[in-house]
């Protein structure tokens, strides 16, 4: 570890290292080549210049064509990375992702597989309103055959995105719009993290907080504060891979603490937290000292006005009070 990098730099590094390591890694998406500015969020800046216009291609605004081309190229032995600029636009490519990418391995009886990575970006809190802010990871988690990955530190972003690219199954990698300039320690070159494995991010004995992505940035601060100020010992489990998720690590932690809070940015109802909570209560009934609680955003379209958008979003205070509720 030589210094710090932010999330944007982390994505850039994983892409750069992967393209350098393997010529079968190719990319496509809107505006991603340097002639078009290297991507509207600059994540792909420099790649087309370095690795050639053949391997890094700007596309028309055609998300079905983007994901379809990634699938086809992957069937022919490539490892394509498709960028879907914002997650709400993935709605036009659901057929390609769900009916095809996720299912071709199974439907072909294992004769083919689809090693694509779909990078997308989303998250509320930037005033982008109803059609540019949705966290839709629960949809994909409900579909067998695709992996859903969300990093919560820049170093994890490097390790997880690299693993997605070299994984033999379709991976959906979700980047957060709000925290792109947040920094953290820089990982070693070639850093990879296993998919499907959760990470005990902080050890603690009183209550387990399970989550992924942005809310864990809040949770880390809350846990430190609660330890300092109130002597509450919070264990944090970072799912890292939302689906298929690492039940074992989660259940081991909750078996120890007896209390659990699930946090995510997506709306509460029918979100990822429901599955985690349902599984915990099923597996650890009788060992739980409190109900499994959820701290999430609200069941409503993301509003435009800042004050309403903040009211929509999960609040750090919600996480804190959920933790304390389990201790009552």
């Amino acid at each position: 570890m030589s210094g710090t990098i932010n999330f944007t730099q982390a994505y850039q590094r994983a892409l750069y290292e992967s393209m350098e390591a393997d010529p079968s890694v190719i990319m496509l998406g809107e505006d991603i080549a340097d002639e078009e500015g290297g991507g509207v969020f600059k994540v792909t800046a420099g790649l087309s210049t370095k690795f050639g216009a053949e391997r890094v291609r700007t596309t028309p605004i055609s998300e079905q064509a983007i994901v379809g081309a990634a699938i086809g190229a992957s069937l022919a032995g490539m490892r394509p990375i498709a960028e879907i600029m914002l997650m709400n636009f993935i709605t036009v490519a659901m057929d390609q992702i769900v009916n095809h990418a996720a299912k071709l391995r199974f439907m072909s009886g294992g004769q083919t597989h689809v090693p694509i990575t779909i990078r997308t970006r989303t998250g509320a809190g930037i005033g982008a309103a109803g059609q540019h802010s949705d966290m839709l990871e629960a949809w994909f988690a409900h579909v067998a055959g695709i992996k859903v990955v969300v990093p919560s530190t820049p170093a994890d972003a490097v390790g997880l995105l690299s693993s997605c690219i070299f994984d033999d199954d379709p991976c959906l990698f979700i980047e957060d719009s709000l925290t792109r300039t947040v920094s953290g320690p820089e990982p070693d070159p070639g850093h990879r993290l296993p998919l499907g494995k959760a990470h005990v991010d902080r050890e603690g004995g009183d209550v387990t907080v399970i989550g992924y992505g942005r809310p864990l940035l809040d949770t880390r601060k809350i846990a430190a504060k609660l330890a300092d100020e109130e002597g509450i010992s919070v264990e944090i489990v970072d799912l890292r891979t939302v689906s298929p998720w690492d039940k074992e690590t989660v259940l081991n932690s909750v078996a120890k603490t007896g209390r659990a809070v699930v946090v995510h940015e997506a709306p509460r109802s029918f979100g990822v937290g429901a599955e985690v909570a349902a599984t915990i209560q099923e597996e650890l009934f009788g060992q739980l000292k409190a109900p499994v609680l959820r701290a999430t955003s609200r069941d409503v379209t993301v509003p435009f006005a800042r004050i309403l958008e903040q009211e929509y979003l999960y609040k750090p205070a919600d996480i804190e009070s959920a933790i304390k509720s389990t201790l009552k």
Partner: protein
Amino acid sequence: MTAAEHYSPSALMDVFRKALFINVVDEKMRGLLKSGGLVAVYYSPRGQEVVAAGMGVHLKPSDYLVTTYRGIHDQLAKGMPLKLLFAEYFAKVTGACKGKGGAMHITHPETGVMVTTGVVGSGLPIANGLAWATQIKKEDRVTLVTFGDGASNIGAFHEALNLASLWKLPVIFMCQNNGYGECTQYSKATPVENISERAAAYGPNLAGVTVNGNDPQAMWEASRDAVARARAGDGPTLLEAKTFRFMGHYFGDPGAYIPKDEYAAAMEKDPMPAIRQAVIESGAASEAEIKELEQEYSAQIDEALKFAADSPAPELEEISRDIYGDAA
């Protein structure tokens, strides 16, 4: 053809008034954004004023409009009240959408502003539905849907044009071809010279027309024809207006991806100085009269901006309203 259907100095003046109004609004908005008086993502229509104005003069308040994030010129040309529009940009409860939709989702059914979408191409299928209802109810209404050149590459465009042609819907698909989709040059995404040529894929019911969007007369006439065609039940039109986007994709976009000579050539054809000159030459108004008009608009706009700035933000309870119709 009746006399009113011929272009004349007074027709030019009608177009000019709307174009000037749009132009003054746009300048005010950019001024505010620069000064920090407004913090928002803003998609300037600078360069596309005559396109919206040339069409707008032919529309009645009862006609329907479906537009995009870059739609403020279309909304103004349609007659959307300034206060409601600005207050929405300012995320105020007095905004047309109570600050909940925001700049990308402006709606005002009273003036026919039915949908503003932030998803590329998504307005076209919806416009068909508005036109379908009109057709069933035998109403005298035209539906105008506007979109960019980039949008002509997405699936919804194709499906919508096909259905409109098949059902001979009273709808106008107005493509504002400003040469770029975000940072991608037209020819890097769209391998056909004119988007109007795409009409050929949908048979004789759909007219395909390309017009110089900087030329008020050409815009006025092509719009008149498309509107008349729709009103008469003769079918839809794909009307492509060639224009340019002087302020980049969003306000603040450095636009480094635009070749300098292309930009300079477009500037030479800037429609605003040209139409002003044409008005003076036609004798429809003198420079002094135009200045007066500008001042009048400026005052109106300032008043509306002040209203917007002074209006209150929505209350927190607003987040629970308008999710479902039968809820509180």
